[in-house]
């Protein structure tokens, strides 16, 4: 078998991953910086505004051009899309733009500019014109700026969002914090469990394996639902607490629809992804190693820290990577048990994808998340090697 033939068998999958994952991700990046809606709907206005000084109201000719193009856009039903794009730059301008062509024909003002101002006095302000000019740019940094709580001012300068609207940075930080916390919790709980599986007598080990694998194979939604059942105020755990008199019946604990719920449920859901790689590494650590360490006078703690733990590190890294990345992109569990404080960045991505239809912003938020993950992935590959990843 020639070298060429051997490696060619991998080509179908390589091509498949490129087409079904890398190309879509590339189109995501494009979407986050590119939007030609307004430039295409109002081409002449776009051109005229490039030459506009920006310090005084545009000339009457520009008003006329805009009126013409807005009326045309209304007929082709492009108007709403134009208005929504401008509204993203200047909140509140949607209605100003969408009512203008309808009313323009009915005014008896002497010129187009006065007609516009009669329809809505906002047309006599510079702000809406700056917003309109900005919306005609096909390439924009607006989405990325908004994704980090900055905004592109109508005059082209960059400014922080007012404090009452700063959302995304906090959510990125929270997502990062939750992911680190979940990874740490999974490690703390999972490490001794993996150890028990790897080193128990064969009968017990088999039972423990089954106990880890059943949840692993059970639907994510089933497990999330069960946490709602357990943690809610009239839930199982509160019932138990009340029965044993730990809390009063009228003072039941709130454990779901908040951060506690998110952390608990995510940790349980992701725990197998920590245990399985750890287990596969631990089964290959010879028991003689720690025995040797003990015979050289190390106490169990020293033997563990100096000898056993370093040998299990590849498993810790693999499990940590899996859990961390899975929790960074988490959507389902926070959406169901998260409540207001348990929201993560993916919930906002879903909002802009599904409800506000602001796909550019959804794409920009995703790209930022992705860059973080790629950096992590490269670091992992450098130090551990992705080809050493094993599952059970």
């Amino acid at each position, binding site marked *: 078998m020639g070298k060429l033939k051997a490696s060619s068998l991998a080509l179908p999958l390589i091509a498949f991953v490129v087409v079904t994952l890398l190309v879509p991700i590339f189109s995501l990046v494009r979407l986050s910086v590119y939007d030609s809606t307004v430039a295409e709907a109002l081409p002449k206005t776009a051109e005229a505004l490039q030459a506009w000084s920006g310090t005084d109201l545009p000339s009457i000719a520009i008003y006329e051009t805009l009126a013409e193009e807005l009326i045309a856009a209304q007929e082709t*039903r*492009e*108007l*709403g*899309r134009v*208005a*929504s794009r401008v*509204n*993203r730059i200047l*909140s*509140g*301008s*949607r*209605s100003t733009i*969408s009512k203008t062509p309808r009313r323009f024909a009915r005014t008896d003002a002497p010129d187009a500019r006065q007609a516009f101002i009669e329809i809505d006095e906002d047309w006599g302000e510079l702000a809406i014109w700056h917003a309109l000019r900005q919306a005609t740019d096909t390439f924009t940094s607006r989405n990325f700026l908004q994704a980090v709580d900055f905004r592109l001012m109508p005059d082209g300068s960059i400014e922080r969002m007012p*404090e*009452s*609207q*700063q*959302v995304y940075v*906090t*959510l990125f930080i*929270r997502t990062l914090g939750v992911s680190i916390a979940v990874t740490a919790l999974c490690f703390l709980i999972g490490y001794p469990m993996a150890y028990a599986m790897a080193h128990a007598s064969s009968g017990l080990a088999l039972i423990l394996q089954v106990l880890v694998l059943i949840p692993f194979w059970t639907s994510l939604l089933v497990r999330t639902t069960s946490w709602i059942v357990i943690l*809610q*105020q*009239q839930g199982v755990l509160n019932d138990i607490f009340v029965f044993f008199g730990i809390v009063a019946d009228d003072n039941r604990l*709130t454990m779901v*629809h908040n951060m506690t719920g998110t952390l608990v449920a995510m940790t349980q859901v992701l725990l197998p992804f920590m245990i399985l790689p750890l287990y596969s590494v631990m089964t290959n650590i010879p028991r003689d190693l720690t025995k040797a360490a003990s015979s050289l006078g190390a106490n169990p703690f020293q033997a563990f820290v100096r000898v056993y733990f370093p040998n299990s590190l590849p498993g810790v890294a693999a499990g940590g990577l899996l859990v961390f990345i899975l929790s960074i992109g988490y959507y389902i569990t926070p*959406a169901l048990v998260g*409540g*207001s*404080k348990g*929201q993560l960045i993916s919930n*906002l991505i879903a*909002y802009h*994808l*599904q*409800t*506000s*239809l*602001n796909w550019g912003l959804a794409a920009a938020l995703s790209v930022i998340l992705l860059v973080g993950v790629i950096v992590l992935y490269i670091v992992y590959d450098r130090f551990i090697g992705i080809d050493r990843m094993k599952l059970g």
Partner: protein
Amino acid sequence: MQNHLPTALCVSAMLLGSAAVAEESVTVVSFGGSYAKACVEGYYKAFEEETGIKVNLEDYNGELSQLRAQVEAGAVTWDVIDAEGPQLAIACDEGLIETIDHLNLPPSPDGVPAEEDFAPGTLTECGVGKVYYATMVAYHPAAFPEDKQPTKVEDFFDLENFPGRRGVHRSPQAVLEISLMASGVAPEDVYDVLDTEEGIERAFGMLERIKDEIVWWEAGAQPPQMLADREVSMTIAWNGRIFNAQMLENQPFKILWDGRTIDSGGMVIAADAPNLENARKFVEFSARAESEAGVASYIAYSPVRKSGYDLVGNHAITGKPMKPHLPTNPDHGGRQLTLSTEFWLDRRDELVERLAAWLNR
């Protein structure tokens, strides 16, 4: 050879799946749950009987991303969509739905033309209104002493006299309006106030009073569940869900009609709907006063046609009169506000972000 069997099955099933269904049908996408059941019993069945067109009912959560994807890719599978006010207007703006000017809307049973019979604002460029629903405060009477039951919307924000946790929809829409009414703004001034920075601060200021006691909900099924479990003592809720809990599950919940906001969705036709003719027939049928009243005999949503409202009688399952439960019944008294679609189109994304930022604080 047996290895190839599943593959063959998959391929043939894919081919089968793409083959068109020859039967006359219309695909209607609507909200699920008890509302969908009310519509099916209320008039979908009558439509099927009268026209012989089969209604394929699908449920969704009001998100339009799927419709937009269909329209952009040129492969529309939806015909008729039941949409909420602002979503309807966005879809109309984005060109995702047809305008209604080709429709021949039926007059009322006694001959009043449709344009006069529909309540103002319920016939829009793209949508034909169907029913009004209310977003308002509901409470569990057992949570408060008998002589101290809540009576006005202010009580929702008064933890001292009306202790207990509060359920609030995690959405600025309706919640901010209710907050402003509770702060003393008259319903007719709410949008003028909410259009200013101070007004927004004022609304959030009301929420600030109860912030520590708020349980946020996202799905309409949650408020009655939370009341039943006594997770909250009072909650903002949709009236149809509370009505069902009262009627069908004998829950003792009470609705506080004061400070309610009402909103009407509408039936719309997807752009390039595959069964356009059937879709038109269906929307015209939906617009009949009898259809609207039919829905209202299963769930407590008010017909948007005056003649439809007059037709409403008793609950089809329990036989109890429906009118006392309808959100637009003038006998409720108290303050009532109709949600402004235009305001929410202009300010929604900004206010969603502000709510998220406020929650993060």
